[in-house]
């Protein structure tokens, strides 16, 4: 067991830190530290391309697809330096972290050649079409239909809460391809072009006044027969495999963003004197401890990438960070006091910390609510009896 990084790894750290800082203090200073996912999309696509040109976009991928075959340790280091340098949220994070790895793991060579370059360089932005009005926590209840007509799939139905759909080029959709099938059976995982007649996106305004997510409607929308991953009817397995990527190395990048948020809270407390308040100090310490434990939990998970021993830790990770961040939002508001409740301009637009407080209410919902996470932990992690279900 060893935490320290080797000399070669520290050298790698210096290399990526130098590059990132030169870019984010140079050509890309305008998007340094940009919060949120919904602004300056074109500049952020430029940034994806700059990353890709220098093979920093998807460093864990094989070299033939623009990666560096980076070790876990190198990926950790890069994620840390990326956040330290103030790298903006990745415009194509769904492509880079979810779609890409899924295609790498389950896709054909043709699919890799077709999709991976555009994902790596941010020219093709992706979104995730899982949820529907009647399929949220009960994801297997999807009703969106896909039927094969000649050499095309024809898709009809509706998705909801589709993050970033309004500027996405591609969507992966879980659709029911077997008439009359129920639950996880008879689903197919399709990759659909967003720029076609029959796909309509309507933004939904959120709690913070922003509109990052959308309703997505499919009316005889089409994709070629070979746009599916896996086999027809096998979509649930692919969809679940993809969910596993959501807890991979990418989570480390997210944590470093959390680091910056906690540092901003500490700075705010130092400015208004609450850094002397014993109760606030306790809460800041708890937040710090939670953050560190998430980091070392992730490192434990990644060090064990293929071992069953770590299952428990992996299952608990989503609820850990989601709950931690929701609490961080509350801490931020308590530190800011009423000043945190006043927007800077006339618009209903929030600076980073109040926005984080508002956005934090969704962390415990998307990707599986805290309740669903507890069910998963209890049933899969602890072997407790399954929840009773209404349809059986």
């Amino acid at each position: 067991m060893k935490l320290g990084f080797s000399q070669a790894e520290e050298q790698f750290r210096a290399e990526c830190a130098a590059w990132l800082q030169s870019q984010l203090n140079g050509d890309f200073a305008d998007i340094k530290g940009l919060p949120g996912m919904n602004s300056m999309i074109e500049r952020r696509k430029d940034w994806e391309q700059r990353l890709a040109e220098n093979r920093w976009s998807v460093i864990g991928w094989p070299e033939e697809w623009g990666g560096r075959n980076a070790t876990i340790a190198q990926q950790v280091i890069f994620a840390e330096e990326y956040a330290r340098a103030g790298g903006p949220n990745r415009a194509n994070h769904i492509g880079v972290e979810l779609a890409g790895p899924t295609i790498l793991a389950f896709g054909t060579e043709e699919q890799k050649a077709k999709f991976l370059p555009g994902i790596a360089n941010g020219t093709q932005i992706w979104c995730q079409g899982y949820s529907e009005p009647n399929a949220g926590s009960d994801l297997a209840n999807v009703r969106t239909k896909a039927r094969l007509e000649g050499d095309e799939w024809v898709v009809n139905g509706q998705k909801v809460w589709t993050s970033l759909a309004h500027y996405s080029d591609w969507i992966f959709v879980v659709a029911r391809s077997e008439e009359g099938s129920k639950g996880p059976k008879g689903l197919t995982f399709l990759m659909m072009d967003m720029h076609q007649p029959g796909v309509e996106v309507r933004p939904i305004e959120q709690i913070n006044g922003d509109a990052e997510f959308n309703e997505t409607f499919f009316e005889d929308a089409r994709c070629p027969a070979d746009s599916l991953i896996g086999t027809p009817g096998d979509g649930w397995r692919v969809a679940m495999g993809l969910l596993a990527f959501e807890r991979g190395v990418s989570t480390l990048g997210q944590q470093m963003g959390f680091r910056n948020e906690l540092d901003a809270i500490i700075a705010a407390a130092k400015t208004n004197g609450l850094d002397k308040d014993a109760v606030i100090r306790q809460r800041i310490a708890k937040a710090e401890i939670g953050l560190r434990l998430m980091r070392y939990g992730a490192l434990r998970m990644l060090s064990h990438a293929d071992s069953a021993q770590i299952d428990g830790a992996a299952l608990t990770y989503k609820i850990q960070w989601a709950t931690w961040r929701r609490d961080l939002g509350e801490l931020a508001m308590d530190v800011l006091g009423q000043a945190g409740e006043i927007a800077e301009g006339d618009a209903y637009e929030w600076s980073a910390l109040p926005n984080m407080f508002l956005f934090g209410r969704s962390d415990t919902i998307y990707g599986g609510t805290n309740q669903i996470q507890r069910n998963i932990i209890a049933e899969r992690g602890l072997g407790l009896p399954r929840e009773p279900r209404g349809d059986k």
Partner: protein
Amino acid sequence: MEFAFTDEQVMIAETVQAFFKDNATSERTRAAMKADGIDRELWASFCTELGLAGVGLPEDFGGAGLGMVEFAIIAEAAGAQVAALPLLGLATAAQAIAAGGSEEQKAEWLPKLVSGEAIAAAQSIYGLSVSGNTLTGDVQFVPHGASADVFVLINADGAWIVRKDAPGVSVTTHTTMDQTRPLATVSLAGVAAEPLADAGAARDALHNGAWICLSAEALGGAQEALNRTVAYSLERVQFGRQIGSYQAYKHRLADMLVDIEQARSAVYWAACAVDEGSDEARLAVHSAKSFCADTYFMCAGNMIQLHGGIGFTWEHDAHLFFKRARSILSMYGNGDWHREQVAALIMGEAA
């Protein structure tokens, strides 16, 4: 970076888990609780047959080398069975002597502690009257103090070895809530104590050892509280269903696992950071002690609640976990104190 056990560490873990499971049984622990809180036979096999008392102590003096990671593995397994052993003395007093003792001090004490021939205990003595190396006053709350042959006592100015049989030393035993680790008062009437050669090193080693040992015990205890409650929830039927099928029940168990997994990261982060002499070591040990103690107490409390009436009985082991957890909360600094150290470290104030 390789934050996973080596093969050798996995082997140690399997060995000690099996050893404590087979030997630190409820009957034997309860027998020890009626005596001085030490299962002597268990301690003898731990020290001599398994040779584990030397883990984390230098090979020159009979130790096995290795480090705090290995020590934590052992403390975790011992804590899982609430074993009645003076393990904490090895983590504190022995570590202090190894880190800050002169060659003679090490040569005199370490082999005896490693073989189990002597038992050690340690405590802070803030508020005692100290003149030169002569100590006077009562040292309170010394864990396993009544059974110890030698004490390591520290304050901000120094660190000393005091023999139980030195003139002027007397010990009062107390009935302690956690009977697996009874606390004693050691009274010193002008005792000539033997200063450790490097007091600073001794203090640091003692504290790190204490915090890691208690954190690891807490981790083991919390995990075992969860395991036993899960087993019960599958066995016990109410309203025609296993109680573990009810969501209010299973969600509590899930929350226990969520905190336990973080506690596990905390223990091994702290142990590695100390072994590697990392800059983060202080942050890590304070984080670990506060987080793991809270986790254990929450899990042991849930263990009682989720067992219903049986969980409240003396006969059931739940109270052993609950009382050990309560004692770990206070020992060597409570959670608020440790978090205050974390706050001072991260806000850039010298503690």
